[in-house]
């Protein structure tokens, strides 16, 4: 009896040690949750979902990757949840950059700190494009925006949104004076608003425009891509604004502050492989949303540069009309 008891006590006492040892060696031991701080359906939701299946294939121990939509307050609710999550790699989140960076840059008190997140991988990058309505005869080229004789009315989702901030940078870096027309629900809505004639021009990720360019409703004026995916559209570099090349929206996976290095690398490796997986590639082709992979080191370096650019134009982001 007493031997049994001793054995049991020894077993119980050493149990945590055993578990801890295993944890070091074999992350992950249980399912991983990806927080999606947006509603189901949009690009911020479908892109991470597309790599979840393949990702579990490339993770040790057959664990699953589960999506969790935490929409609200322009992503803030989800980012807060990531900030509070245990830094063990079992909870990560997709991040909209620069969306997540703008609130603190414009002086809003936010409870998460983007500089403390641990960056795991970049999934995609959508560079911006400035466009006017197809039927707008007054604005046919980028030069026409400058020659309008009055500030350009630009449609946006709202103050503090990514496109609003981009318009601020465009004003200060490219000399395009604009007044904002805010309050649209999505990029689709403000593009249609612009087509309808609510405003003169708008700025949005280039993919959002493809179908409208194809149908002739939208005229592309200048692209922030390195190489234009739309024929005949000048790039910012060709117009002499090389600094702004690549300005756009990134979809990035991040882990809570303090996530250990080995965990971050295991996750990064699995995600990099998942993006190359035939299943994910087939999806990307089908929906015309290519991946722009960056591993944990690349994305960390990339973001420190991007955050510096936004910090440089901090005062541009702040301006209201």
């Amino acid at each position, binding site marked *: 009896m007493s031997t049994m008891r001793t054995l049991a006590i020894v077993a119980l006492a050493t149990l945590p040690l055993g578990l801890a040892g295993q944890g070091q060696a074999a992350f992950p031991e249980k399912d991983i949750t990806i927080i999606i701080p947006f*509603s*189901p*359906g*949009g*690009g911020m*939701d*479908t892109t991470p*979902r597309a790599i979840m299946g393949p990702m579990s294939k490339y993770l040790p121990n057959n664990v699953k990757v589960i*999506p969790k939509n935490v929409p*609200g*307050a*322009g992503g*803030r*609710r989800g980012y*807060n949840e990531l900030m509070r999550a245990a830094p063990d790699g079992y909870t990560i989140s997709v991040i909209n950059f620069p969306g997540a960076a703008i609130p603190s840059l414009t002086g809003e008190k936010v409870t998460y700190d983007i500089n403390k997140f641990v960056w795991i991988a970049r999934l995609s990058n959508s560079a911006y494009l400035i466009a006017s309505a197809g039927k707008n005869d007054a604005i046919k080229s980028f030069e026409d925006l400058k020659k309008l004789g009055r500030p350009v*009315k630009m449609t946006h*989702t*709202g*103050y*503090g*949104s990514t496109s609003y901030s981009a318009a601020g940078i465009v004003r200060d870096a490219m000399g395009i004076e604009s*007044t*904002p*027309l*805010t*309050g*649209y*629900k*999505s990029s*689709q*809505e403000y593009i*249609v*608003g612009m*087509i*309808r*004639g*609510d*405003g003169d021009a708008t700025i949005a990720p280039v993919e959002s425009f493809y*179908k*409208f360019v*194809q*149908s002739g*409703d939208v005229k592309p004026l200048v692209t922030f891509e390195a190489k234009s995916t739309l024929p005949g559209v000048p790039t910012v570099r060709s117009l002499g604004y090389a600094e702004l090349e690549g300005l756009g929206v990134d979809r990035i996976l991040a882990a809570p502050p303090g996530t250990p290095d080995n965990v971050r690398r295991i996750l990064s490796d699995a995600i990099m492989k998942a993006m190359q997986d035939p299943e994910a590639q087939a999806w990307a082709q*089908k*929906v*015309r949303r290519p991946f722009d992979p960056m591993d944990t080191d690349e994305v960390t370096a990339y973001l420190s540069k991007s955050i510096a650019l936004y910090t440089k134009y901090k005062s541009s982001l702040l301006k209201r009309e």
Partner: protein
Amino acid sequence: MLESTLAAFDLLFTARGLLFLALGTVIGLIFGVIPGLGGTTAIALLIPLTFGMKPAEAMSLMGGIMGSVSFGGSITAILINTPGIAPAAATCFDGYPLAQQGRAGLAIGAAGAASSVGGLLGVVVLVVVIPLAKQIVLLFGPPEFFMLAIMGLSAIALSTGGKFLRGIIAGLAGLLLAFVGYDSVSGGIRFTGGIEYLWDGIPLVPALTGLFAISEMINLSVKGGVVATSGQANVAITRVMDGVRAVFTHYRVTLRGSVIGTFIGAVPGVGGTVASFLSYASTMHADKDPASYGKGNIKGVIAPEAANNAKDGGALIPTLAFGIPGSAEMAIFLGVLVLHGMEPGPMLMIEHPGMVFTLILALSASCVLATAMGLMVTRQLALITLVDVYVLVPAVVSVSMVGVYALNSNVGDVVTAFVFGAVGYLMIRFDYPRITMVIALVLGELAERGFHQSMMMSDGALSVFLTRGLSAALFAITVLILVTPAARLLLERLRARARGVKRRAPAAAPALQGDGVRLVVPVLVLALAIAMLVWAYEYEPRTRMVPALTAWTLLIFALLDIAAATGTRPGRYIAALFTGSLAGPEGDEGKPLPPRRVITACSWVTGYLVAVLLVGFHAATPVYVALFVIVQGRMSLRGALIAAAATAGFNAVTFEWLMQFELYRGLLFG
């Protein structure tokens, strides 16, 4: 076009296609019946399930859901005066009185047939206008949205008949509540008191569930008895087919409802609730006998039902043409489209015509299938009206609270439903129309956004609302609506003078437990207006502009309401001006009720809420149901245990087992 239609038939009428259509229809009916749940939740929940499906199968499933949810929602509205989904609230007005008269079968039959016909007509319109969809969407800019919202609100306030003044007040208060949270135009966060939950505003579905379901349950438990007051003998459901026939006899009502539904459905952000109420209101006003509405007029069931299902066809117009969702359901449905490689927009019809027509076919087939399935179980469902109130109340309270929680797994939603339950009960008790408040909650943001955007477009010139044709037309209609009661009064007076009748003063309102009680709500409203005004001035000018304007308007109307409630001479004239009649305001609902019963009824709901917050749904539900049945219903222990087990079991099986939700476990066990 014909080719793609035929291709769509091939896609839908496969064994798997039909299976998913039927599955979608059943799920849609169930989600419709349960208050708090609806098409939005159903589609959101099923998105992951469609990952492995072919696009055509996903379209069949989604079409099945969209076509059937609204009929499910009206069944609950008719039987227990609790709309299963928001738009079905209009069906309560006449559907519930019919159920009380023991004619639930007639009402359900009419609702089912009207949904089918309305849904089909909506789809026909969709097919016809798809080539024109782009032009239609481009017709509605910010000034038109603003005027449309204002017109909708006015029309609905007017449809409350003798309660026009109170309708306006409930609407203005609803607007103020709609302004809580993030303001998309100025980017400011307002009126949240620092509560993170309120950042995105007061969520509509929990508020609505509170206003209609919880408040109605409080009301029922104060009154007691069973729903069908005319006695058990009449409840045998034999007149379902009469209801179906009524839809065709009153074909004008059906047609009008369908047209309104399609039109309103096509306007993004407005949606089914407004559509069904506008349809109800316009049918009532077109009728020779408007007074018969609200008392069990079958046309009052047909009108909102036809509109409510027709709106899906309409809502698909902007969704497919531009990727702008016409409703919350459509917003999530957009995600399904994108997930399956179909980017909604001007190119969709050119690139994937087969898919679009599969969806349209599935939607039409589901409208009919849902009605057939629903009508088959009508007899069993109608027995609900014979269940003792003291069993029905705790069961419905619990299921709707769980439904509200399941929406976003957010326990804050349960608290919201509870708060609005209390507000709703106050409104029932003192005869303020709840519906204008709901419509204002729906339209508030749209109206404010439309106003600011119009101002930005025109550089601050108000004339923008009158220089655009469509906007000017909507403005004219709004003015007409607002002066209707006063004009009616004037006309009546002129006719009377022509007959030589002497001028008479308006009658006083009927007494309600002394006149002091009548002042409770107006004074509360006045306090709300003043508080919001003070609060609004903390924010920068653009953020506060529309809320402050609304609060000032509410302040004026609250003072008018207080004057009207005093029953003094000027007060009576004010009341007459807004009701359009000298007969005095309509009587308050029911007999005076002992305050003690009200307090008891409210305490039970509060007790359940606190228990849920502390120990979670699983522990709180059976205890609450059993105690309520024993203490309030004075029933046997055995009956109480059965009711408790049934409710808790239903929650566990439906939500945790079938839908894989984890129900709230409570602060103590969480």
